[in-house]
């Protein structure tokens, strides 16, 4: 397997907490521009895998490469984010006391040190970019509203919007439709597909209907390693997947 064409390359990764093996010899490869859905039962290691990729958790063992050449295990969250990996949490995490505009402003690609921030003034280009994103996430009428006042689904979208503002090469999206209405779920699927046109994306999701809607390659994790990989139909036909996850 060659690394050079991949956006994300995990090989033989293991990590354990107090003797509990959360990730066990996991190998996963994502090609540039690919969107991948990851499914698996609770405790399968989905979130821990994201922690490893984003530098939150250091693996005990194994290789993690981004963009074919960057060893992610030797970088921390901020550096990894600056390289172009964006992450959306399972529980929507936005800056609740800030307005939507301000949220996006903080996420916008740009210098990340203190003094520029202290003397920063919003440029016309930045304003345009923010307008664009607000349009994409369909929150135009609430742009000055404080994020705390948004509904659950709107917060999910705002968070996705913040990922877009970061302009990453790879997006890690953790359960984007949890707690959404059916209409919102559809909308979100459309949004993600739109994003996937020019970004690599990993989506973790339990909602099989949503995964089907995305129509992409699926990886099923179990007990910290890959149980099955392929199209959704292929995976859902896999005996073991049915056993541990989908149920009979």
């Amino acid at each position, binding site marked *: 397997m060659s690394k050079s064409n991949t956006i994300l390359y995990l090989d033989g990764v293991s990590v354990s907490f*107090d003797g509990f093996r959360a990730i066990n010899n996991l190998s996963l490869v994502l090609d540039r521009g690919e969107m991948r859905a990851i499914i698996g039962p609770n405790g399968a290691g989905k*979130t*821990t895998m994201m*922690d490893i990729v984003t530098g*939150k958790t250091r693996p005990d063992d194994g290789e993690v490469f981004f963009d074919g050449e960057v060893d992610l295990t030797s970088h921390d969250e901020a550096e990894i984010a600056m390289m172009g990996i964006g992450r959306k949490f*399972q529980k929507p995490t936005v800056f609740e006391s800030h307005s939507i505009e301000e949220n996006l402003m903080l996420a916008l690609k740009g210098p990340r040190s203190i003094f520029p921030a202290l003397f920063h003034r919003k440029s016309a280009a930045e304003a345009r970019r923010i307008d664009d994103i607000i349009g994409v996430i369909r929150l135009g009428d609430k742009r000055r509203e404080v994020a705390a006042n948004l509904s659950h689904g709107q917060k999910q979208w705002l968070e996705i919007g913040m990922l877009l503002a970061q302009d990453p090469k790879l997006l890690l999206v*953790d359960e984007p439709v949890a707690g959404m209405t059916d209409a919102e779920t559809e909308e979100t699927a459309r949004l993600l597909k739109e994003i996937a046109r020019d970004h690599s994306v990993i989506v973790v999701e339990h909602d099989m209907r949503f995964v089907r809607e995305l129509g992409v390659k699926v990886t099923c994790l179990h007990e910290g390693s890959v149980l099955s990989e392929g199209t959704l139909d292929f995976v859902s036909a896999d005996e073991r997947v049915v056993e541990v996850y989908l149920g009979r």
Partner: protein
Amino acid sequence: MIGLALLFLSATLSSLGAAEADLRAIIAKFATAKGFSETGAVVHELAATGDPKVERPLAALADGNLYIRKADSLVLIGKEAGDGVQLSDPLSGAASGEAAKDDITKIKVNNTLRRAIRDALGTLTLGAKDPAVRLAAAGTMFKTPDAANIEPLDTAIANETVASVKALLEQARAASVLVSDRPEADKLAAIQVIGARGDRDAVSLLTSVDANASDAVKQAAAAAIANINSTLAFWDAGQNIWYGISLGSVLLLAAIGLAITFGVMGVINMAHGEMVMLGAYTTFVVQQVIRTSFPGLFDWSLVIALPMAFLVAGFVGFVIERGIIRFLYGRPLETLLATWGVSLILQQAVRSIFGPTNQEVGNPTWMSGSFDVGQLAITWNRLWILVFALTVFGVLLYVMKRTPWGLQMRAVTANRRMAASMGIRTPWVDALTFALGSGIAGIAGVALSQIDNVSPNLGRGYIIDSFMVVVFGGVGNLWGTLVGAFSLGVVNKVLEPYAGAVLGKIVVLVLIVLFIQKRPRGLFALKGRAVEA
């Protein structure tokens, strides 16, 4: 001292048991003696008679119980009884009426006199029936070596049947040989005997070996000292560790209630120290009641105070939880403010009720004094506090891990809503948990009243250390509190002899700060999957 012993010697040789009239004549001299030196001369004269009967008046004098009746200048033993003094005859002990305090004059004693009396009694009681008295006598004679003591000691050794007394008598004899003009061989043997004791008293004796002793004696003494000192150095290290463990047990006691209210419940309980203080004051009140009403129970006062302190502090904790804390769950910082206010109020309340001064809390006899393990002096109160701290810890651990209540407690603190929906009465559990933490702080106060001031400021002295211990050990982990308390105690006490008390403590604080950098969640942190999950 030599004169005294000579007199004693001559007295024993001439007549055993002087006539009682002679003794009375000497005792009467106390009435006319002016100043400590003249009183001292009378003591010596009395001791010189060698009559065992003089033990009574001398002991009374040492205890400050010898009086002169102003009316007839008679010297009598007095015992305070209510407003008056019960008088008795100094020799026979026969009652001799009562007197008002103004009608009698106490014969003053000071340390020097007391020591003289102690020495005199030492020789006099060498032949006492009670082996404990003989042991004390031998101990006194060991510390006051005198060439003239050798002969009476020889006699005593020959008659002695109890091995421990005999050993001490032999050491006393050796000490006396060392200051006598006996031949070199005897002295070398004496050094052997003393050196075998291996303690500081032996060093003290050996260092005072006469400068004009022979070289062989000096060398032997020096060698013995070096030998003892090297073992003592080892014991010193042990002593420091013991002190550390003891300090650790105090820290553990102080912190363990906080490990519940802060560690488990998340209330930044600044009034924790005041709960400890309430426990100490409860002990004081219990002791007062016992002193006035049931003096016989005094040795049980702490045992009685324990449940009382638990209830008092627990009840106050319960009231605080119901009245204030319960409105503040989910806002831990507000609990800091409110409990700080509560602590001010409690302090001032105690100050208003009991006054600002220290209150006296007595040590029961089983918590007084010390005993030796090798060269390690272990005080009973420290040992009991250690035992007590570990017991409290054990019981608490059991309650938390093994009882249904503990399970409910942990369930509520882990997930209040879930626990409530499973039918646990969360407000009740909260209140009881807080009361438990407070009550434990209260019983810690019972123990701390034995070693510290019982004053309104008692709690303030422990609050910072308690927070350090809980945080150092890892919030929410009882074992962490245990290990944290003992490690901070031992580190502190091991540093203290080298760095001094102040610098030692500073170093410990800096170490805590650095340690938290290394383990930002304390010693026993819960590790787990990232919280974003």
